């Protein structure tokens, strides 16, 4: 992402000339950004392919204590894992380019099915986490800016550092200990209670996003149950990003509050609250949009640990499981999808930032 402030236009330049230049530049910028998606995914998928093979093969992992070396070698040969790694790699690339992700070695499930089944759970968690990040990070950032260099500001800055420096699994365990085990306010784990899950399973054409499915059941208890299960995972993952948002909003609001137009508004008698909310916050939110792209990658990385801690059966949860089984095919498929999501999100963010912020250089 290169959001560099453009130099001031030379005096006397025709107003229409730069406009035409910007139009062509915009599309070229868009094209370059789009094309960059492919090497990004390619590099990631390649890395995963080779790294997975450094950790051994799935046949030895599952049958190593039962078969003799000869039997094991025969099985490995049948599966083709003893072929030159470059041959395997080229075959894999060929399959990926033709949209054939194959089936998992462990349980024979088509990778596309796995991505669809568990992707919705991860998407739901990521949305909840982003909501938490917004409703915690942005207001607190405004508060910190408002109380700049006072105790409130110092406290919030410490909170911000803690929230993005604390490992997400640790935050999850602490939250679970306090709110589930000690206070018994919230469920320990899972996406819903067993009874609600049974209710959701009875629906035709489930979306996999539990909140939507729970609403479709027409049961308020089911909706409440699903939301109650989402609170702690969303907090654990959302606070990770909230800290970043808090600091970003604080810095930008402070910067905007010192601008001339804010002073002018203040001198016209505009109240402090209105100044922060109406005049300082909106410009301060633009950088947040550009940061979201990076945060999506962080959220997906955090989702692996959050989903495992809270039994949130999404892509991260499955990724951890298949990694433990050294299931090459499943891990490659999931990582490829995550890479696509991150690359596409960054592309969209760059696009939105370019549209919203005229200072972005094409």
């Amino acid at each position, binding site marked *: 992402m290169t959001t560099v402030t453009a130099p001031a236009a030379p005096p006397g330049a025709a107003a229409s000339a730069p406009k035409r230049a910007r139009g062509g530049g915009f599309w070229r910028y868009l094209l370059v950004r789009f094309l960059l998606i492919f090497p990004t995914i390619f590099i990631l998928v390649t890395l995963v392919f080779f790294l997975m093979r450094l950790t051994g093969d799935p046949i030895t*992992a599952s049958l190593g204590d039962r078969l003799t070396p000869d039997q094991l070698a025969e099985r490995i040969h049948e599966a083709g894992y003893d072929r030159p790694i470059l041959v395997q790699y080229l075959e894999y690339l060929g399959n990926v380019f033709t949209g054939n992700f194959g089936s998992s070695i462990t349980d024979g499930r088509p990778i596309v099915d796995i991505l669809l089944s568990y992707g919705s759970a991860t998407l739901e968690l990521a949305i909840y986490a982003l909501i938490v990040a917004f409703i915690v990070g942005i207001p607190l950032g405004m508060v910190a800016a408002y109380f700049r260099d006072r105790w409130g500001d110092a406290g919030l800055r410490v909170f911000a550092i803690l929230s993005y420096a604390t490992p997400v699994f640790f935050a999850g365990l602490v939250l679970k200990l306090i709110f589930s085990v000690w206070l018994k306010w919230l469920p320990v784990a899972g996406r819903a209670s067993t009874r609600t899950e049974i209710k959701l399973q009875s629906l035709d054409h489930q979306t996999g996003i539990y909140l939507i499915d729970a609403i479709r059941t027409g049961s308020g208890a089911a909706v409440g149950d699903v939301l109650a299960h989402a609170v702690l995972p969303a907090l654990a993952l959302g606070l990770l990003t909230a800290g970043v948002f808090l600091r970003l909003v604080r810095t930008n609001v402070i910067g905007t509050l010192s601008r001339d137009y804010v002073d002018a508004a203040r001198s016209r008698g505009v109240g402090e609250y209105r100044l922060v909310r109406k005049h300082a916050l909106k410009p301060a939110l633009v950088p947040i949009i550009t940061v979201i792209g990076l945060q999506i990658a962080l959220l997906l990385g955090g989702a692996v640990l959050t989903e495992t801690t809270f039994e949130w059966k999404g892509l991260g949860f499955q990724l951890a499981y298949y990694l433990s089984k050294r299931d090459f095919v499943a891990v490659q498929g999931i990582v490829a999808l995550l890479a696509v999501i991150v690359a596409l999100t960054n592309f969209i963010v760059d696009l939105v930032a370019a549209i919203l912020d005229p200072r972005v250089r094409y």
Partner: protein
Amino acid sequence: MASVSHKTRVLAAMTIPVTAALVLAGCASDSGDNGGSEGSSIIVGTTDKVTFLDPAGSYDNGSFAIMNQVFPFLMNSKPGTSDVEPDIAESAEFNADGDYEVTLKSGLKFANGNDLTSSDVKFTFDRVIAINAENGPWALLGNLDSVETPDDTTVVFHLKNGNDQTFPQVLSSPAGPIVDEEVFSADAVTSDDDIVKGEAFAGPYTITSYKFNELVTFAPNKEYQGILGAPENDDVTLKYYADSSNLKLDVQEGNIDVAYRSLSATDVADLRGQDSVEVVDGPGGELRYIVFNFDTMPFGAKTSDADPAKALAVRQAIADVVDREEIAEQVYKDTYTAVYSFVPQGLTGATEVLKELYGDGSGGPDVDKAKERLEAAGVTVPVELNLQYNPDHYGESSADEYALVKDQLDASGLFTVNLGSTEWTQYSKDRTADVYPMYQLGWFPDYSDADNYLTPFFATDNFLLNHYSNAEVDQEITQQQTEVDPAARQKLIEDIQAKVAADLSTLPLLQGAQTVVVGTDVSGAVLDGSFKFRFGTLTKG
């Protein structure tokens, strides 16, 4: 005044959404929907995983746990015993040719209405062998030559080695669930969805809803006519967990009724002290050993100072010194028990031969005896031992287990142990390549028969490849496999154990205990030597 008001508004903007979320969560919690079951419905939690529902495609605890509820077997064991008897069969016995002949009950049906005949039985076993799936149970059918079906209710299993006394147990093993030939594929593993949609179930339960490795709901199958009888509950829901601590918390809080496999030793110890649950123990089939490589261990055949008598003295002295009780108690909080037999307690043929031969004679260590043994053999002490274990395959407590073994051996003054660990993939290759003179091994049985603890370990060219060979043991192993008289067979099994106890090719340390945790209002949890946990006996209230 105005600025105070603005501050309040800013703070309110921040706190309202957070508070609302917590209140909403609180409301949901107060709704009384704590996730527990109602009436005689039972919720069982597990950390096991399913790989395939299709018996031809899987050979693991998680998949077999479901198969035991929904598929019938020709031979099966009633809760409380590991001895098998005809399940959906009317009779089953070896014929004069040494083949195994089974007569099915008449009028058997699958839940989908399809008839269950001898043709389904033949189809079942033929496809396991034909599919030869990577993680399938095909290896268990190594002695099966062919299956013949003279009529709709008769099945003849032609065996390569006739009168194979383990075959009835094989029919009760993961290779034995009978499937519907009209639903299952003959040459490929059938998907879980196809099996569930096809209602291809003829066991005590059918599956009414299925979400892979998340939630499975079972309802009693009216068509089942086997020895397990009709389930005593209305339905069972099986919930899957990834983290055993979440499983523990849920059973402790009453969100589920039963926690079966696998809670950590610490969690089980903690739950024993809780009023809200009851811990039920049973014999486990897992054994944990130290394996000796006869070529590379101290004084082994390929070492510079090779001496079989000294090598034997070293093995026996180690057996004298290790304190199994201490390992079971300190490391595993008694979720494993000390074992002094090569066949685990609970199975026919189990003895305690090692207790009499080594240590203080009652299971405890005896360093003086070990010292005398080594002196008598002319072994200079301390003997340097290279002992290897694996930290990522046999449970997270392996490191503690082997640290304690090292401590015990070092503390005797007779040994100096160099303890090493290797990641599983490499460990699997190294252990059969003579890399480790002594190493850790764990074993889960394929079926509940003593033979499964003897042949793979002590027959010449066994799967350990530790260069142990004893012609008398080989002969008796072959004999017991086909001995039709149960008493004579048991005697042979005991003799084999006496011989291998003297040779000490492996040193069994611990036997896994099965544990299930149930709510105080749940009864009927039975754990036995079949290592099958049946949902049908569970009741609530």
